[in-house]
């Protein structure tokens, strides 16, 4: 198991290096220069001294390779540099928002599991019946609905329902409070984006649960269990479910990794100050230093989550670690 883990960690290094090269050189393709675009905006006059100062601050006056190595090494020593918009250390800006994004990602993943696994099992057991069609329609609707529209509908639904129920419209709290300070207020704020995202992401997991269950239910050992007269409920719960869960774990894990960086639109709808909103703000404010670091950070989170999934998978299925 140790060997497997070490091998996986070494395999992540080229991916991270590639991600760093991609974003670093992509942002160097900006027509002109990062500082010129940032300070010049829509074509106004820019003091050449200000450009020079900006270039020196970002190290843009040095050779490209030196710039890349300096930035890449600094990143992994947790020195992300300084935001070009707020002039605050990027690590501080990220730290302020990381907790919120992590909490939504965890809550959305839990909601996604709570929806996907029961529905996937029911859909597989009742294959090609109206229940199966209903579940499949429900899950494809989740994929088809844009999360920002679902968010708008949720907010609208809350507003109109509370107005009708009590006469006073109610909206979720706007200011973020950590869960250990005021759990009720925290959950009242974050449950809605978690619901919108969780429903959307449950769709893929539902389809995967259904297809994995169908595959396992056709295995010889399930047929043998049926021939021995084991009850269908026991076959599903004890024999099929455990084996069908392996690919589902992978899908849920990958979705969690994507959620950590991919909540861009949902955070915008619910006006949440998380990593996704920080990313959009950095793009709209031409904060290239922030954009560069956030992209690499998302890649790091994604790669580490993938390793955790792979290790969990290898732990659950010993055939993988020995192959």
């Amino acid at each position, binding site marked *: 198991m140790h060997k497997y883990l070490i091998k996986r960690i070494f395999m992540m290094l*080229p*991916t*991270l290096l*590639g*991600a760093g*090269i*991609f*974003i670093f050189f*992509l*942002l160097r*393709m*900006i027509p002109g220069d990062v500082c010129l675009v940032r300070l010049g905006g829509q074509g106004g006059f820019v003091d050449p001294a200000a450009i020079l100062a900006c270039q020196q601050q970002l190290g843009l006056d040095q050779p490209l390779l030196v710039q890349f190595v300096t930035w890449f090494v600094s990143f992994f020593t947790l020195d992300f540099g300084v935001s070009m918009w707020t002039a605050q250390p990027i690590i501080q800006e990220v730290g302020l928002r990381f907790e919120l994004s992590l909490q939504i990602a965890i809550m959305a993943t839990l909601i996604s599991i709570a929806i996907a696994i029961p529905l996937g099992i029911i859909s597989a057991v009742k294959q090609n019946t109206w229940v199966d*069609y209903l579940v499949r329609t429900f899950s*494809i*609707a989740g*994929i*088809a*609905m*844009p999360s*920002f*529209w679902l968010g*708008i*509908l949720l*907010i*609208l639904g809350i*507003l*109109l329902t509370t107005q009708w129920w009590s006469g006073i*419209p109610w909206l979720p709290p706007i200011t973020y409070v950590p869960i250990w300070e005021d759990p009720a207020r925290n959950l009242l704020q974050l449950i809605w984006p978690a619901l919108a995202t969780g429903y959307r992401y449950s769709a893929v997991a539902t389809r995967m649960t*259904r*297809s994995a269950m*169908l*595959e396992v239910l056709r295995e010889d050992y399930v047929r043998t269990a049926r021939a021995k007269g084991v009850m269908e409920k026991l076959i599903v719960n004890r024999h099929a479910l455990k084996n069908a869960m392996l690919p589902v774990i992978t899908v849920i894990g990958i979705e969690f990794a*994507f959620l950590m*960086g*991919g909540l*861009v*639109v949902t955070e*915008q*709808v619910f006006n949440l100050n998380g990593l996704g909103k920080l*990313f*959009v703000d*950095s*793009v*709209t404010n*031409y904060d*290239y230093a922030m*954009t560069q670091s956030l*992209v690499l950070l*998302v*890649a790091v989170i*994604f*790669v580490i989550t993938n390793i955790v999934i792979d290790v969990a998978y290898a732990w659950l299925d010993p055939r993988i670690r020995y192959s």
Partner: protein
Amino acid sequence: MTTVTNIEPARLPDKKTISTIVWRWCKRQPFGAVCGLILVGIILVAMFADVVSPYDPELNDFANMLTAPGSEFLLGTDQFGRDVLSRVIYGAQTALFIGFTAAFFGSFIGLVLGVTSAYLGGWFDLILQRVMDVFMAFPSIIIALAIVATFGSSTEIVILAITIPMIPNCARVVRSSALQIREIPYVDAARSLGFGHVRIVMRHMVPNVMAPYLIMFTSFLGQAILAEASLSYLGLGVQEPTPAWGLMLQGGAEEYAESAIWIAIFPGLAITLAVFAFNIFGDAVRDTLDPRLRSQ
């Protein structure tokens, strides 16, 4: 001794015309067929938008701002008095143009890279797959935003931003199919006849991986429409006053959601219907082209 009577003469199978093939497919995949019809409807509406649209989608009518749906404005008007129905109809043009272009280029480049990678193998395959790993290490919206941050937001850049994340996904799927094709003797036969690499890849391998390619293409169409809507919603995609579904949900839709609910409802419904139809239709195509998945 028994005599056999009333033996029907052997019949040749029915001649397969396009209409019989389509009819049989519709009977086998009724849900997919309905969604296919919806898609045909959306495409026709987009193509003949100037005929079916009741008003100019960019015309501000300040006398009729936030008018509720009625006989004059079937889906109401927005905060600038623009007809929501006309904007939804013209929005279909934007969505389909960006969707089809991004899905075509994304799946085509993925197809070429996937087949070439499987055919050549060795270092080329190894390096290309590591590059694909890099692109698959980000949510697609992050790559799209990074591209828009670099090159600005125009329709061409939005298409590029949506296309690039699709390439590795398609290349991976196509490569796994192409690896199986490479082992089939006719590829060896073509090689032993002295055919060039390009001829073997294009004439002998590409036609045999069309099934996964078409499956990826149809699923990309829905994804591209959603991605375009998301970028427009963030204000980083198509810009005003161009009618686009995601853009219609930005600003006014949230601001006036309570008093003019129709602004928030109809563009979202249009996106959902189009993506839903593309997904179901794509599933039906997949079930038809890949019989292994039919039972699932």
